[in-house]
């Protein structure tokens, strides 16, 4: 069976869609399978925060590049995702938090994020809506947010313009190894593809099982809440030292409250239930930071699923032992950094040397799986350099 497509992608979130976009534009005949609609899971329901102050240190260089991508989405994506670039503040209300903040901001600064620690009065000048109870704040000019729910619309338009064969509402039931690539099994047909990218977010563990590989992926059930429209009460992205708050007011007036407070769910059922005490805790934190927020009404709350590998760093690179198969996802703060990491993988697939190293998954596989893995392309820099990526952070 001669492959009908140069590239097949399973999973239509930010990662899968970005890989598809760059590869299709480079001339690969690309098909993308999404069991639901494009960017309707984590990529469409996350808080949209594009911040350095919640990003893992190892990912700061990637997040900086990705921030620039989001800020110029109209240019490379061609469509608006409602990106607003603004200042970001990470707050400390206690001495302990001030210590944590100073330490963490220092580490992130070393990695390249332009974060400085500022006084309450300086913070108040940046964000007049701020509570007087702030002890100090981390301030970063490279911050902002997107309107996550517009992600699907923007990518959908871009992918269709790039000629991607977009197959929404098309679950993939398995992958077969073929002589010249892979067969992607759907309810309608098995689609032959030459190269394959698995980009299934929290469902990557199930997808890797198609190859008999066990890649443990933890599922975080992140609760989010949005208020109805209110008068302008803030103008920056606000978080706290521990990272358990993300807060911003959109231009139309709604305020999105996030920060990764956990709800109930799993990868089979999705986010099935919100825990009221965690919603209340999250919203109290939000109102403690921006007191005027108390005027608002809670309009809606929901949960988004975030994938996390054992070391909470991305799974992005070739799949060991399976030539022409790749994985992309589980990027901590994946919405922020996703487009850049996916673009690096696209470069790799297009046999261009990625500018920054990828995140090969050998480190995450069980020893027997890793041992089985032959390294067919060991000359590539991301494999050689794997140990130098700062995983230990």
């Amino acid at each position, binding site marked *: 069976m001669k492959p009908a497509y140069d590239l097949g992608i399973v999973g239509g979130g930010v990662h899968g869609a970005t890989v598809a976009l760059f590869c299709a534009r480079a001339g690969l005949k690309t098909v993308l399978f999404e069991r639901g609609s494009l960017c309707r899971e984590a990529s469409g329901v996350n808080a949209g925060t594009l911040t350095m102050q919640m990003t893992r240190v190892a990912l700061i260089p990637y997040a900086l590049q990705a921030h620039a991508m989001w800020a110029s989405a109209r240019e490379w994506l061609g469509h608006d995702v409602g990106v607003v670039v603004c200042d970001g503040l990470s707050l400390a209300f206690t001495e302990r938090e001030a210590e944590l903040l100073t330490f963490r901001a220092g580490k992130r600064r070393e990695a390249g994020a332009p974060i400085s620690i500022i006084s309450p009065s300086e913070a108040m000048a940046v964000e007049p809506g701020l509570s007087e109870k702030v002890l100090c704040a981390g301030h970063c000019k490279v911050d902002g947010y997107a309107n996550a729910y517009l992600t699907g619309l923007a990518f959908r338009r871009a992918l269709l313009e790039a000629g991607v064969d977009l197959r929404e509402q098309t679950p993939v039931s398995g992958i077969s190894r073929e002589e010249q690539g892979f067969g992607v099994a759907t309810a309608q047909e098995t689609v032959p593809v030459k190269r394959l990218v698995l980009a299934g977010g929290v469902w990557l563990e199930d997808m890797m099982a198609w190859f008999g590989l066990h890649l443990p992926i933890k599922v975080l059930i992140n609760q989010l809440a949005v208020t*109805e*429209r*209110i008068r302008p009460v803030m103008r920056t992205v606000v978080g706290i030292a521990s990272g358990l708050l993300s807060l911003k007011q959109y231009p*139309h007036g709604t305020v999105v409250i996030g920060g990764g407070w956990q709800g109930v769910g799993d990868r089979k059922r999705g986010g099935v239930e919100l825990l009221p005490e965690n919603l209340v805790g999250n919203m109290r934190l939000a109102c403690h930071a921006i007191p005027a927020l108390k*005027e*608002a*009404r809670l309009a809606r709350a929901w949960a988004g699923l975030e994938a996390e590998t054992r070391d909470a760093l991305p799974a992005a690179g070739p799949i060991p032992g399976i030539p022409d198969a790749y994985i992309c996802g589980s990027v901590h703060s994946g919405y922020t950094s996703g487009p850049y990491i996916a673009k690096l993988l696209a470069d790799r697939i297009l046999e261009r040397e990625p500018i920054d190293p990828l995140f090969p998954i050998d480190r995450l596989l069980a020893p027997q799986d890793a041992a089985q893995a032959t390294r067919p392309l060991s000359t590539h820099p991301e494999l050689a350099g794997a140990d130098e990526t700062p995983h230990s952070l």
Partner: protein
Amino acid sequence: MTAQRMAGIGRGAPVSIVVDGSPVEAFGGESLAAALLAANIVQLRKSPREGGVRGAFCFMGVCQECAIIVDGTVQQACLVPVHDGMTVTLRGSV
């Protein structure tokens, strides 16, 4: 549109509420939405995107058209009984 109080209905004691700074008379027990309508105050808010004028619509707590600021919090006028001294701010476009 001015709602008309029906004859044959016993009403509570007269109360005075303040709507955007002006006094409005009503009767104890009446919902704020009904009291405003009886006072010929039909425009309660402006729609946020286009600034269109809006008034109470469903009177059963569903449509949110009558969500205005009552004693400092956003409340649905159709669900809130008036009380003497209640202060009401009609919402402009937000």
